[in-house]
């Protein structure tokens, strides 16, 4: 039994003064997510990601189609005791402290004291808010709110977690912590359904992805497969290279740029990269990084939309 099963899900919003004109936000979506997977739900703004998540959470009613989570229809309220949800750009009761909010959410799940107190303390520690539990949410930064949002999605030890743009508003440290939280959920066998439009986050976390555009499913599968990723080249970054080494390297690469003390070299294929690295290291330079150059998700969508193809 899949953790999430979506069949023919369609949502039309009625717009205009008399609400007579339907605008299709989601078009006949079919999707299946297995238990224990970290599944990335990708797409540019307006692709239908949040609409799908809101339907799964019963915040929106589908125009047609159906969905099941853990084998139960999405409108079965008791099923929601087994899932967690972080909304996009979350906002919580700003008159509550982080601890009060999590306690309130715990009570909605029927968790009783003193287990609830322990759970709340542990969650606050996990999301890096151990010292801020007694502060009212109105004094929290956007990143701290996002962390509280993740904590409230995990109060009930869910079997499936839905995260809508969980990295939004987080600084690099916060993003790393969220990645750790997701990795820890995965190690415990929790299914994570993760919506984002930031490719590196998805690449770092997801087993499989689905790509949405204008309400339609464009592709689903492993990221490399569906993006048909070709390596367009490599970027080698060095430091401490002497003039002789630089001269030798400039004949081995397609492009060489000096950025302060660093040298950025662009090479076409792996053999070229190996030769550059060998030459640089033997010339006394330090290797900082070798990064494959691939089309970004934005490139993918741009090319899909303009019809140029990858």
């Amino acid at each position, binding site marked *: 039994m899949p953790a999430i099963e979506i069949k023919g899900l369609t949502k039309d*919003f009625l717009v205009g003064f008399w609400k007579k004109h339907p605008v299709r936000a989601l078009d006949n979506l079919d999707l299946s997510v297995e238990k224990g997977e970290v599944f990335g739900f990708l797409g540019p703004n307006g692709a239908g990601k949040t609409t799908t998540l*809101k339907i799964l*959470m*019963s*915040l*929106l*009613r589908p125009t047609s189609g159906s969905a099941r989570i853990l084998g139960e229809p999405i409108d079965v*309220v*008791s*099923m*929601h*005791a087994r*899932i967690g*949800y*972080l*909304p996009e*750009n*979350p*906002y*919580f*009761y700003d*008159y*509550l402290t982080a601890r*009060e909010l999590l306690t*309130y*959410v715990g*009570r*909605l*799940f*029927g968790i009783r004291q003193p287990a609830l107190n322990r759970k709340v303390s542990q969650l606050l520690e996990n999301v890096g808010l151990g010292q801020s539990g007694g502060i009212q949410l109105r004094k929290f930064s956007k990143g701290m709110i996002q962390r509280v*949002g993740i904590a*409230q*999605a995990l109060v009930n030890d869910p079997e499936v977690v*839905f995260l809508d743009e969980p990295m939004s508003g987080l600084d690099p440290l916060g993003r790393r912590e969220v990645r750790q939280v997701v990795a820890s959920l995965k190690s415990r066998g929790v299914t994570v359904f993760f919506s984002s439009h930031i490719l590196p986050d998805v690449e770092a976390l997801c087993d499989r992805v689905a790509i949405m555009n204008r309400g339609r499913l464009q592709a689903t599968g492993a990221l490399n497969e569906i993006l048909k990723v070709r390596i367009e080249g490599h970027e080698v970054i060095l430091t401490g290279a002497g003039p002789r080494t630089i001269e030798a390297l400039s004949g081995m690469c397609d492009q060489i740029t000096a950025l302060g003390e660093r040298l950025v070299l662009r090479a076409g294929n792996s053999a070229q990269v190996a030769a550059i690295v060998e030459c640089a290291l033997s010339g006394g330079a330090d290797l900082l990084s070798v990064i494959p150059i691939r089309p970004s998700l934005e490139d993918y969508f741009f090319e899909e939309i303009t019809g140029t193809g990858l």
Partner: protein
Amino acid sequence: MRILAIARNTFRENIRDKILYNLILFALIMILSSVALGQLTLGHEDKVIVDLGLTSISVFGTLIAIFIGISLVHKEIEKRTVHALLAKPVHRAEFIAGKFLGLLFTLFINTAIMTAGLILTLMWHGGAGLQGYLRLLPAVYLIFLSLSLTTALALLFSTFSTPALSALFTFFLWVIGHFNYDLREFGRLTKSGALQSLCTTLYYLLPNFANFELIGSQNVIQGAAYYRPIDAAAVGWVSVYGALYGAILLGIAAAVFSRRDFK
């Protein structure tokens, strides 16, 4: 359990709202100032204090019920706090019931504080003694019933309308609800059958707030001012009316809220 958790949070939201304290303070000032006004009426000081005190409890309670009630649900939708909440195992009807109970408890505490203020004022002034003060309680209870119905009305409107419109609708029905008997009399006097049917229908359909103010032919506040007892059976029937009408309003609110999409 879930309803109580939501009610508890709503109560916490209300008691951390400054508007509440402003209104309670105004009410207590009004009750205290009745002592000064009482000086103008020889021999009727207690009556003026009770009259003004109970009216203050009613008016300021209604203001609290309307101003907090209209934003109860709307604020949750507007600020999107409802998104995380309704993704939990919470029925939408439970959400409505919890919000209602939370505000009702707030009103109960407010009414208790204002009543205590009124009784202390009377004691300070040296009035009718404990038996007399206890006779105020049925009147306070009827005011509280009226406030409960006002809250249910405000909550119903807040499930589908903006706070400004909800306030307008609630106030409009609250005013009409005080002239329900006149509406029925107007129907009886008119010669048009259609108008008569319309007035009779409206009489039964609209909330009858006058029920909580007139027991028999006696005005509740006036009666309390003279420490007159109130017919307990009549109070019982009014309680049943308030509970039934309130339940219907909350049922409609839950049905409307259940059909809503949260974009």
